[in-house]
């Protein structure tokens, strides 16, 4: 490292030599930077997993447009939409198909752990609205009280899920009815439920007697190939007489849901602040280490000033220290952060992973904020007056 820094700065690596001179303090400083990195990684991991978990159910369906109630910020939030708007939308020449989508939470009381499934009620005859993985089993839902279960659901053992097949279905009690799971699909636990379940709209209405077939939660529309969703959406808005309805492209609906979760839901805001706090903790730790180091070496710095070294030289030393702390603190932070995210993912089944983007952005952020801390710490150098040496 000493050789490398010497080549990099073209001078003695004073920053490195200063930091490593007191190895205990150096180790503590690295641990501090690593800790801040771990904080940021965990918070970012949770934020990202919230994003992935929010978008995951949208991947179960294939649609071009979605009509929702005005207050439906997420798939499982807000009021219903009158089915009449589905019929009205079908009048548009570019709309080829439409399907009502029902959403509700279904508890499954198990001896070991109670599971809450976010349950979607769909029309089994409209397999084109389902993702290829699910569409293949859509016909199974024609049977009353049949279900497709999320094999990655929290609380459902992998062996138990793997055994679910049409030949060996799994029957279970929920909402006072006996459902039978004939097949599975890959979902995963989210923040609002332990997993997902797909049933037919008729089974859904049987599970939720208070709900009406005339009021699904959302209406999914498919358009003629080549049709422009934005133009169709604009046309539908003039066609539909309820101005409170949200008529958006399916992709926009997913992104708006994501933004809503990240910026308006308490969890998103809390995790966002968690990232900010991690960054601030790192900033304070590096600043504290560097400013203490500057204070401890004021006499030596004053001597260098007397010898004719200028401000750039001192800034270089402190930035060298910031760089060393940033890089060397990042490595253990990355390792521990990855380990914690992996452990949390195994426990919660949330999609918590260390992505290359996270690693690179946190690394660049660490270097940037370390350099910023170093630049602030150089202000203490003003106290090093060489005239005081005599």
């Amino acid at each position, binding site marked *: 490292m000493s050789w490398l820094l010497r080549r990099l700065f073209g001078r003695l690596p004073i920053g490195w030599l200063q930091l490593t001179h007191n190895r205990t303090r150096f180790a503590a400083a690295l641990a501090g930077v690593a800790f801040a990195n771990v904080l940021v990684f965990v918070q970012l991991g949770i934020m990202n997993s919230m994003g992935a978990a929010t978008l995951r159910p949208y991947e179960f369906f294939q649609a071009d447009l979605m009509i929702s109630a005005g207050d439906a910020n997420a798939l499982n939030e807000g009021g219903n939409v009158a089915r009449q708007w589905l019929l009205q939308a079908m009048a548009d020449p570019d709309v080829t198909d439409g399907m009502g989508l029902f959403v509700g939470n279904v508890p499954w009381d198990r001896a070991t752990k109670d599971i809450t499934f976010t349950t979607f009620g769909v029309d089994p005859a409209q397999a084109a609205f389902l993702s290829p993985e699910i569409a293949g089993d859509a016909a199974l839902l024609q049977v009353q009280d049949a279900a497709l279960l999320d094999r990655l659901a929290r609380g459902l053992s992998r062996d138990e899920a793997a055994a679910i097949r049409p030949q060996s279905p799994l029957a279970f009690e929920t909402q006072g009815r006996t459902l039978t799971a004939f097949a599975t699909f890959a979902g995963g636990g989210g923040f609002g439920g332990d997993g997902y379940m797909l049933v037919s709209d008729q089974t859904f209405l049987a599970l939720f007697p208070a709900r009406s077939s005339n009021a699904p939660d959302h209406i999914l529309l498919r358009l003629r190939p080549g049709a422009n969703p934005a133009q169709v959406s604009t046309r539908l808005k003039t066609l539909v007489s309820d101005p409170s309805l949200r008529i958006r492209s399916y992709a926009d609906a997913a992104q708006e849901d994501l933004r809503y979760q990240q910026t308006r839901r308490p969890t998103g805001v809390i995790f966002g602040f968690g990232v900010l706090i991690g960054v601030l903790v790192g900033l304070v730790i590096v600043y504290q280490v560097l400013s203490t180091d500057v204070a401890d070496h004021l006499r030596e710095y004053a001597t260098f000033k007397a*010898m004719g070294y200028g401000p750039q030289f001192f800034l270089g030393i402190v930035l060298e220290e910031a760089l060393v702390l940033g890089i060397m603190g990042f490595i253990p932070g990355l390792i521990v952060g990855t380990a914690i995210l992996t452990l949390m993912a195994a426990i919660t089944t949330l999609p918590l992973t260390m992505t290359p983007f996270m690693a690179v952005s946190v690394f660049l952020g660490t270097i940037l904020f370390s350099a910023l801390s170093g630049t602030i710490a150089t202000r203490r150098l003003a106290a090093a007056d060489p005239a005081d*040496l*005599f």
Partner: protein
Amino acid sequence: MSDAPIIATTRLNHWFGSGDARKQALFDIDLTLQRGSFTVLMGPSGSGKTTVLTLVGCLRAVQDGSALLLGQELNGATEAMLIALRRKLGFIFQAHNLHESLTAAQNVIMGLQVHPGVPEAAAEQAAVHALGLVGLADRTGYLPANLSGGQKQRVAVARALVANPALVLADEPTAALDKDSAADVVDLLKRMGQARGTTTLLVTHDPRILDRADRILTLEDGRIVKVEERG
């Protein structure tokens, strides 16, 4: 050029503080140091010795009067000019002020590294040579913590001299040294002055040094009250 004085001050005055607390520390100092001379500045505490050193050493701004250092006027000089001039000087302080995390050789290299363009290998060679001159050839890789007080001060001397400065400013360099070490350090400064033409201005209370001086100036209450030529 060789006949031009290294330092020439004319009616140099200096004040500390401001308003009612403003106090004059130097009064009309006229001081000329020729190349290669070894001058001792004496006087009681508070007489202004250190102020003279810091002014001619470009560590304080000249307020009133003229101070020519290596032919350049310090009164009105910019900070950049003062920094550039300081690179041509060698400083030895009462405390060695060595960098604790640098070896003896690395501390000496710092005296050279301030000059851009000195090759790394040449700097290392010069540092080892300088340490050899002060009798520390076998201590080049030692950290200051592993050197005695006299050895540290000799490293500081090597650091001040390694770049062949035109002027060495030394403030009580022997105060913390035993008799033998003090004599070694002063003899070394004297020898280097003779060999390289380095001018030395040394502040001291140490009577052991006086017989090595070419000239002794005595300051009292900010005024030069006595000039004793020994050369």
